[in-house]
């Protein structure tokens, strides 16, 4: 198998990004929005191409550094879908960006490429490069609204803490790969027996996990998330919440389940602690929030905790559940951000009070936001429910092996109840706010309407027929390179 065929999706993405960048030179400023459509269409084509039967079989490339397996394919599609929606969001967002709209699109595409590489990385070097491509792109993206102080502050905060996490990751990589003598995950897992007792190795692994914990905003490495989510432009926040987080998750899965499965098993208590603390912290802090984006920031912390839950279970159910959960999360969060983006267009504030009277002003937006909140809360028949169901199942299954997981389970249950409280706070604001000052209908651009329709269709489809997804995910994990197949 030719290496370049395997990375054709990524190549296409990067080329698309470059194309947008270059095309900008010849296109009149007034017509630059069109580039967004081109970018979105391109991503859609790449997404469709990933389903093509002509697509190469699974395999590894670049000296086993890059793996193309079910897991990576799943995540690639995930990222592509997310980027597609984010690009559509960005098209609508274009007029709120002072300069460089086509760069905005191409940066999103480059971040997408980084995520796709991350999904396939089987080597610390590739992982580092991909992770940094994502992170640095997001430094720029978060601070893209340079005329807004909030955006800049968000950028700087993300910068400092992102760089800190890079520092941890890199030092972790140095120690782990140094002790093991290899940077390849599979080779590392083969040598694991010799090195897993080495304290330096374990310290390194801990640092590495810490670094990745930063990326997914897991407790206690979550401090950046609320501010960054609040300050960034809405499409960026959405991409950060979905794409960057999923990239962190897939890398965490690769590192823990492929490179060091035995250690991961023995660490499940620690992972469970992180997961529980993250869930609880995110849920509790979300309660008093007034800013919608900040609320979603905390909710995303809680969701990171739920995702960690599946990892802490260290079993195949958990891994599958993570994938299912992510898919549901994707549509729900993107729908929420789409609505927020539309509503805050004129309001210049994302205080929860802007939702007042939304059910009257625009029933469609109200419905979309309600559904996404309901889905995030994990209530049937929407997509979020099934993910939570599987996560709980996986942790119960893991709990039948070890005790601390029951505590985690209790935390998760309590957190779901708490999360319902604040998600319903949003719904309440939509449907029965007292002080409705503005009754004018909110115009919904057709792009946004399309985006919302896609998200809602996704939420319902995955909620009512999760079978498609679960089968696909289980298959993805079965075909994944490494020890996924051996996970119980």
């Amino acid at each position, binding site marked *: 198998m030719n290496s370049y065929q395997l990375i054709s999706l990524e190549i296409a993405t990067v080329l698309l990004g470059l194309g947008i960048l270059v095309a900008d030179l010849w296109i009149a400023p007034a017509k630059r929005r069109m580039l967004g459509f081109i970018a979105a269409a391109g991503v859609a084509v790449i997404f469709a191409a990933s389903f093509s039967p002509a697509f190469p079989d699974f395999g590894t490339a670049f000296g086993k550094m890059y793996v193309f397996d079910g897991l990576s394919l799943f995540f690639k599609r995930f990222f592509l879908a997310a980027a597609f929606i984010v690009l559509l969001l960005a098209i609508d967002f274009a007029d709120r960006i002072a300069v460089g709209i086509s760069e905005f699109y191409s940066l999103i595409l480059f971040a997408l490429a980084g995520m796709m590489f991350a999904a396939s990385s089987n080597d610390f070097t590739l992982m580092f490069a991909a992770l940094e491509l994502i992170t640095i792109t997001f430094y720029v993206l978060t601070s893209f609204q340079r005329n807004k102080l909030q955006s800049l502050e968000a950028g700087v905060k993300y910068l400092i803490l992102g760089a800190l996490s890079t520092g941890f990751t890199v030092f972790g990589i140095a120690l782990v790969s140094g002790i093991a003598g290899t940077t390849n995950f599979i080779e590392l897992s083969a040598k694991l027996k010799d090195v897993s007792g080495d304290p330096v190795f374990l310290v390194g692994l801990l640092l590495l996990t810490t670094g990745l914990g930063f990326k997914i905003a897991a407790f206690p490495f979550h401090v950046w998330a609320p501010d960054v989510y609040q300050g960034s432009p809405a499409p960026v926040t959405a991409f950060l919440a979905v794409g960057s987080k999923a990239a962190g998750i897939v890398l965490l899965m690769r590192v823990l389940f492929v490179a060091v499965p035995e250690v991961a098993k023995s660490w499940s208590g620690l992972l469970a602690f992180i997961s529980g603390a993250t869930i609880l912290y995110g849920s509790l802090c979300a309660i008093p929030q007034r800013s919608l984006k900040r609320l979603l920031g905390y909710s995303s912390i809680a969701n990171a905790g739920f995702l960690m839950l599946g990892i802490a279970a260290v079993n*195949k*159910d958990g891994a*599958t*559940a993570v994938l299912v959960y992510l898919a549901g999360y994707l549509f729900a969060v993107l729908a929420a951000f789409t609505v927020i983006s539309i509503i805050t267009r004129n309001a210049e504030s994302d205080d929860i009070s802007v939702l007042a009277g939304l*059910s009257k002003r625009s*029933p469609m937006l109200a419905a979309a936001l*309600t559904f996404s909140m*309901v889905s995030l809360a994990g*209530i*049937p*028949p929407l997509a979020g*429910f099934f993910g939570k*169901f*599987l996560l*709980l*199942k996986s942790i*119960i*299954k893991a709990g*039948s092996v070890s005790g601390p997981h029951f505590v985690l*389970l209790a935390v998760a*249950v309590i957190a*779901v*109840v708490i999360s*319902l*409280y604040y998600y*319903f706070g949003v*719904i*309440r604001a939509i*449907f*029965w706010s007292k002080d409705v000052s503005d009754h004018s209908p909110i115009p919904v651009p057709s792009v946004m309407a399309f985006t919302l329709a896609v998200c809602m269709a996704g939420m319902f489809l995955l909620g009512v*027929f*999760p*079978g498609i997804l*679960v*089968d696909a*995910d*289980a298959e993805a994990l079965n075909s994944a390179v490494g020890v996924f197949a051996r996970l119980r």
Partner: protein
Amino acid sequence: MSLLLTTLISVPLIAALIVALIPGNFRFIIRLVALGATLVSLGLAVAAFVQFQPQGFDPAKLATFQMQHKVAWITSDVININYHVGVDGISIGLLLMAAIVAFAATSVSWEIKTGEKTFYLLLLLMTGGAFGAFCSLDLFFFYFFNELALVPTFIMIGVWGRGPQKNYATYQITLYLTLGAMLALVGLIALYVSAGVDSLDIVTLKEALSKKALSSGAQSVIFPLLLFGFGILVGLFPFHSWAPLGYAAAPTATAMMHAGVLKKAGLYAIIRVALPLMPEGVAKWMPVLAVLCVGNIIYCGWVAMRQKDLNMLIGNSSVAHMGFVFLGIASESLIGLTGAVVIMVAHGLLAALSYGLSGYVYNTTGTLKMDELGGLLRKMPFIGVAMVMCFMAGCGLPGFANFNGEMLVMVGAWKVLPNIVVFAAWGGLVISGIYMLRAIRSVLHGPAQARTEKVGEFVIKEPLPASEGGLGFLGAITAFFHSALGGGVWQLWRKLPYALLLASLILFGCFPSLLTSKIKGSIAEVVNLSHKVSPAKATAVAPTPAPLNVADTRN
């Protein structure tokens, strides 16, 4: 293999979809669709009820469900879930009750004047969810449908609810019910994981667990999870405080549906899942339940006495009634459990009727404070009479279905839990008698108060919105229905839901065997399975083999 149940479930859901597609200003059409859908499903439920064959119980083999329909939904090595519906004696009565209440609730929803589209959509979803919950044989789908029915409750209370405590009530009911549901979900998943048959299908589970029971450790964890999880959904003492508050704040139809139907789903799940599958858990936790149910009966009854608000009174009495069901469950006897199921059906009708009536009173007088009401019997004869009958049924007057149920429960529980029965009898007959009669006196009798001075009965008539009248052919039909329903037969029509509920109560009160004959076979199996592990206890509780004595339950 029969599509009847699937059709029954899908009728309201499809109707909900249709409602979603109709523009919001075609209010009358939306009402018609909702009413038509519930009417059709009522017909289907009656058909199912009639079609259901009462069956005896053969302890050698497990009962079969009737009218089953099974479709593979998720089959993977991670999870295996099928869409599987079917009914047995326990659920068929509840299904019929649900259909009746749903129709009644849709009928009384004329009071809703804003956001009808969303309201009916949610109501239909709720109806579909309730049907689904009672029909599902796969526990995942049971949970799924139950949640589907619960969520609209929160929104409906929030949006169309009333009273100063609306928000507080909404949050309380949301959080309590979610907590209960989550606990139950954890219990169900734990059951799935520990049963080891890779299925949540009740049939499969029963079969597998009757062969190889769960480990006692697993049972002692899962059983309380299910008991308290579902218990919270029902309002088990001390987790009941949401119920009266929530119902007091809820719009009429929601209160009817939730108090009448959805609450029963939790009880149903306890009887369906917890009892037969985990005999050891039953043995361990039933004493606790027995104590708690006294709390329900006495404490909530006592609280009900102190209420000044009619709805709060009804709410608390409703929770107190749940105590009887818990008592029946705690008795673990054939008679007691049969009685519990009968109460579930009866109380569903009763609660719906009570809330329907109180809602009507609220809409005409604008208050439910008992000291502001009075003399309604004279002003609104039909409502007044219905209310008297309703309250009489509530305090367990013979002739109404509740009496049968309570009687059966107490008889069934007497041998096992005599002390508790004393409490229950005291609570059920004396306390409820006190507050019900007090309510009758202050609401219906006496001089008319300021609020009730000028009210009349069924005088509401509204014009057909112009947007619906001018629709050509469709408009003509609409106009016809509107004049038919709003013209000459208007008053009769508005009385229909109350009459229907009252009639059902009396019907099942006078002919309890309609229910018990269907219930007994299934309950016998439940009782049998729940005693399976501890034979000593089983003999102590039911000295004679349970199935043979079923006939005695006819009262």
